């Protein structure tokens, strides 16, 4: 039963988390800066791309998705897929009204 108790990081370090945190702060600065620009139709898309990048960092490093078994990543993709498809099909109605 030992394998159930395996912790993923055998020699954890503080450094990677601080690095990611700095990256998150940088991305926050970026998204605030970009908000000041007038890029019309791309406003939402840009904001969402930056937010997704931040979320990706939190998911993979802070939440250890990177070091978990692939099953976890598949799970996350399935959940995100469900959300994405709901968005897409919902807009299939509203975009064409």
């Amino acid at each position, binding site marked *: 039963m030992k394998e159930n108790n395996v*912790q993923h990081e055998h020699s954890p370090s503080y450094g990677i988390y601080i690095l990611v945190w700095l990256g998150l702060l940088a991305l926050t600065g970026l998204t605030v800066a970009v908000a000041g620009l007038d890029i019309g139709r791309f406003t939402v898309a840009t904001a969402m791309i930056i937010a997704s990048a931040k979320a990706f960092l939190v998911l993979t490093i802070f939440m250890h998705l990177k070091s978990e078994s692939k099953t976890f990543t598949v799970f996350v993709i399935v959940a995100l897929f469900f959300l994405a498809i709901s968005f897409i099909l919902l807009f299939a109605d509203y975009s064409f009204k």
Partner: protein
Amino acid sequence: MTTQTQAHSESHVHRDDIGARLGMWLFLFTELILFGGMFLVYSIYRFTHPEEFHVAAKELNTIIGTFNTIILLTSSLTMALSIVAIQKDNKRLSIFFQFLTILLALFFMVNKFFEWSIKFHHGIYPGSDTLLNEKSGEILFFGLYYVMTGLHGLHVIVGVAMIAFMMRFTSNGVVTHDNFIKLENTGLYWHLVDIIWIFLFPLFYLIT
């Protein structure tokens, strides 16, 4: 005639950290989709009322919003660090990081409280006459603002309670350097709360 003992009945409570994390991730999906539903509503209303959303968003203070974002991101950092600390068997440091996380979370809530108070003062709250006299897009914007940040705030408070429990568990030895699944799962919850805010922030505070 055999008699059965207590021991074997309770014996099938076995430890499975991977299973515990799997269950936690599944729970997080439900939270993601709970908020996702509101993001769906937001996206449709923004699509159908772009101008009015833009006007309504001017009421929100970008600086407080940005500040709160930084606070929450930092709280995610301290949460992650508290786990590294307990893995390195540094109990006190872990508790300290957990405590910092709670402080930052409370700071976030205080800011939120002031934000809301200012708006209430201006008569902008659900069901208020001031709000109901505005265009429908603006009413919708603030309805979504209050419900989404309100529900998020509720989750922050729940998170604070959970982390407080973890501080206790770490201190009394329930959470240890080779059994910290409870702390990990609390961390996972906390990071999700952070991720939701990461998306809330630009959608409400950065529409210009």
